[in-house]
């Protein structure tokens, strides 16, 4: 332990402690600009200067990096210190007049204005180097650094060009004390709801409100620690030490009797239809993005805002985006008409905007659905029957200036209309999950031509599959709305329970078997069985089929060169007779 005095107060601290840390323990605040507890001290701003008395006499030292020594006497606010801080803060004020934090700090020392010459009134950067150190020490990337000497010193990227080393983590902007660094939208748009537009989400998040379990998790794709093996700030600041980087996704094997496939759907990627301008034009959003915007726990607290923060006065909703379209999906996604009407209703209610629906056919079967549609008609919703041709920001007259223009044929009027709106919502359809094919193979089931999982029979076995014990629930089988999904899931669960309740599985009746006395032990059948149901019995020199393993395909039977293998229900004789039979009538 080291004994020293700070402002006359004695204190004992562990060796290796800095004066700044020691002073903090005693409650003496020392101003800092270039210091950050998670970064190595840099001692560049010199604001943390204190006066130290030791055997060599009095000396001004920076407290952020100076290690305490036995017998030190430190003054954190002596006249000399105050004078040094005043001058240094004035120098920084002159250099970066727009850095408010500096002026505020100077005001504490009675400095209102700098005595020094100022060159650039807009300057915010005080060259404290926090960003550069954060980039190197936290992000581990060194994508930014200092260039030039002296007064020409600037923080920049190598050769002043954007470079791939930058992982756009935003550490530099986060740590910047003066706001000199901002994260820019590459499209130059003002960012109001970052989830929707760009910029990385935080690497540690609770997936969504009310998530279960309601615990934050690290997104390893976004986390700097996993990208560059640096950072680790969260572990440093987490007092209960709950952060564990070594945790990994684990694959656990669970033995089950039945499996429900409820892999759901994926929404249609609206940017595939370039003419609607999604991803290019501002304020063209998808229905799901509208839901997030409208959500009370969403980024805008439920207010429907455009990217410039204003409320839309007119909104177009385009139906059947990616559905009922030979170029994308031929089928009707079933749920879009109704949710579009809901969006229209909410939009009108929340913003008072004029809402235009562009539909092909209005499909509202179901309990209460048609009535809702009627209600909307009464509310004065604009419903235009016709597929929207495109969305553009190309104005042909003053009314269209600064707006999104939807062009559509109004088939009821028989004319092409141009409707200028502030915001466009695309009612995107439902699509099978991109990995449906993979899942399908894994479970040995089929897919329909659209890619939805195929039921065993469309009428008689709508939740079963061709694989016993595997059932389908929800929209992995095809587009469904919520009640339908719930109903079908219930059915699937009931089927699964029935199987579980019975507690045993019926074997296939059509298993293969071997006439032992006729088997020559040629082993031809053994490698053919994908289920390893056939084994060779050495002492008898014959093959033997385990009927519990046999799934009854009959491949071995067809290959058995001496006909010793046969299949129940499908013996050679039976099939020969069947062939004769089917050919016997004219």
């Amino acid at each position, binding site marked *: 332990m080291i004994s020293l005095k700070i402002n006359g107060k004695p204190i004992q601290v562990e060796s290796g402690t800095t004066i700044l840390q020691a002073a903090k323990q005693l409650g003496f605040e020392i101003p800092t600009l270039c210091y950050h507890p998670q970064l190595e001290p840099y001692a560049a701003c010199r604001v943390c200067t204190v006066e130290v008395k030791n055997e060599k006499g009095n000396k001004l030292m920076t407290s952020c990096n100076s290690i305490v020594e036995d017998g030190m006497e430190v003054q954190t606010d002596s006249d000399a210190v105050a004078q040094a801080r005043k001058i240094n803060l004035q120098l920084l004020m002159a250099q970066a007049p727009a850095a408010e934090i500096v002026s505020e700090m100077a005001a504490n020392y009675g400095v209102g204005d700098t005595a020094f010459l100022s060159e650039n009134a807009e300057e915010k950067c005080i060259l404290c180097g926090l960003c550069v150190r954060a980039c190197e020490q936290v992000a581990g990337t060194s994508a930014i650094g200092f260039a030039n000497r002296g007064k020409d010193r600037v923080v920049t990227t190598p050769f002043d060009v954007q470079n791939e080393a930058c992982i756009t983590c935003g550490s530099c902007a986060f740590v910047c004390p003066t706001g000199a660094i901002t994260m820019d939208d590459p499209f130059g748009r003002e960012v109001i709801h970052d989830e929707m537009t760009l910029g990385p989400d935080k690497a540690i998040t609770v997936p969504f409100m009310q998530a279960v379990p309601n615990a934050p998790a690290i997104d390893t794709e976004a986390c700097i620690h996993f990208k560059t093996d640096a950072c680790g700030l969260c572990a440093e600041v987490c007092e209960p030490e709950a952060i564990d980087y070594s945790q990994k996704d684990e694959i656990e094997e669970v033995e089950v009797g039945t499996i429900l496939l409820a892999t759901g759907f994926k929404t249609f990627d609206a940017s595939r239809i370039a003419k609607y301008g999604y991803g290019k034009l501002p304020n063209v959003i998808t229905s799901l993005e509208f839901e997030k915007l409208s959500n009370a726990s969403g980024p805008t607290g439920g207010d429907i805002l455009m990217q410039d923060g204003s409320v839309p006065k007119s909104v177009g909703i385009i139906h059947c985006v990616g559905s009922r379209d030979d170029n994308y999906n031929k089928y009707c996604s079933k749920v879009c008409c109704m949710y579009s009407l809901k969006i229209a209703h909410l939009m009108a209610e929340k913003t008072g905007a004029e809402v235009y629906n562009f539909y092909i056919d209005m499909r509202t079967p179901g309990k209460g659905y048609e009535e809702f549609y009627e209600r909307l008609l009464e509310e004065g919703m604009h419903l235009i029957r016709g597929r929207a041709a495109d969305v553009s920001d190309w104005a042909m007259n003053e009314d269209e200036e600064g707006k999104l223009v939807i062009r559509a044929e109004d088939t009821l009027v028989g004319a092409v209309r141009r409707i200028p709106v502030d915001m466009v919502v695309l009612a995107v359809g439902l699509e099978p999950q991109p990995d449906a094919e993979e899942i399908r193979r894994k479970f040995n089931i089929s897919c329909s031509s659209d890619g939805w999982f195929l039921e065993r029979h469309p009428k008689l076995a709508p939740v079963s599959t061709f694989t016993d014990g595997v059932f389908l629930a929800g929209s992995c089988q095809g587009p469904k709305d919520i009640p339908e999904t719930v109903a079908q899931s219930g059915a699937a669960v009931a089927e699964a329970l029935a199987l579980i309740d019975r507690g045993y599985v019926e074997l296939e009746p059509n298993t293969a078997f071997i006439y032992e006395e006729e088997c020559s032990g040629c082993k031809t059948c*053994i*490698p053919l069985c994908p289920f390893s149901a056939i084994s060779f019995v050495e002492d008898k020199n014959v093959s033997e089929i385990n009927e519990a393993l046999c799934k009854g395909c009959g*491949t071995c039977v067809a*290959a*058995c060169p*001496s*006909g*010793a293998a046969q299949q129940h229900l499908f013996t050679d004789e039976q099939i020969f007779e069947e062939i004769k039979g089917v050919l016997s009538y004219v």
Partner: protein
Amino acid sequence: MSKPKVGFYWCASCGGCEEAVVDLNEGVLDVVEAVDIVFWPVALDFKRSDVEAMEDGEMAVCFINGAIRNSEQKEMVEILRKKSGLIVAFGSCSHMGGIPGLANLHDKESIFNRVYHTVPTIDNPDGTIPQVETSVCGTTVELPEFWDTVRTLNQVIDVDYYLPGCAPPVNLIVGAVTAILEGKLPEKGAVLAPDKALCDECDRRESKPENLCIDEFKRPYQIIIDEEECLLAQGLLCLGSATRAGCDSICVKGNMPCTGCMGPTSRVNDFGAKALSAMASVANANDEKDVKRIIGGIADPVGSFNKYSLPASYLHRKVRK
């Protein structure tokens, strides 16, 4: 009690079956001791008239080898059927058509054309081909009618038993004769040989792997054949797994693959199709291109799988166009 009378007859065949009888060596003496050979044209001077002169069913058994491919053979076997208590189809040719049966890949016309016109060694300026009836010096001379299709014995007459093989193995012959003498015959229509495939008695069977899959089919001249290892595992088209046992695997012992002369086991109807199925199944390929490559390595599939059995197969002859 007089000794049972026995006959031997030879139709479309190579004569090897007759040799097989002779191959009994001194055993033939025991046969002669036990039976009275009353008809054996290849060895003894009997005439058709001698047979015709017999009472119906006078012969206890008649062994007929060779396929049937002309009218004279048909007539003879019909007579023999009448005069014999039992007819035994002797050897692959009468059993399944045999090598001569491969003529079913052609027809009478093309065969005559080849044999009498286009074969390089022929000297036939007049282009003469055999005629059933020919006038020679005022008399009519007859030749048997040559059929378009080669037939197995049982396609022509009712056959009681079959002695398979090309030629039938001696021990099977002895076994058959003994059974007849002792009256311990199986059900009519039976093949007088074990009803298991050759792998069962093959010396190399233990070297056959359980995960047999073939990357390339080879012909014997293409490799130096290992004398211990399963021939199929070496890539040779050995049909032993589809072929009835009873030959003591003499070909395999001679380091040559089984070609299937003993015919199928009792549950198999079409020897060639079944053997083909077994061989194709173990080709190690799933991709169409690879399948074609490996399967393409099997030269002459019809000749390979139906070397002895074409007339007895489902398709039995080429479709006429």
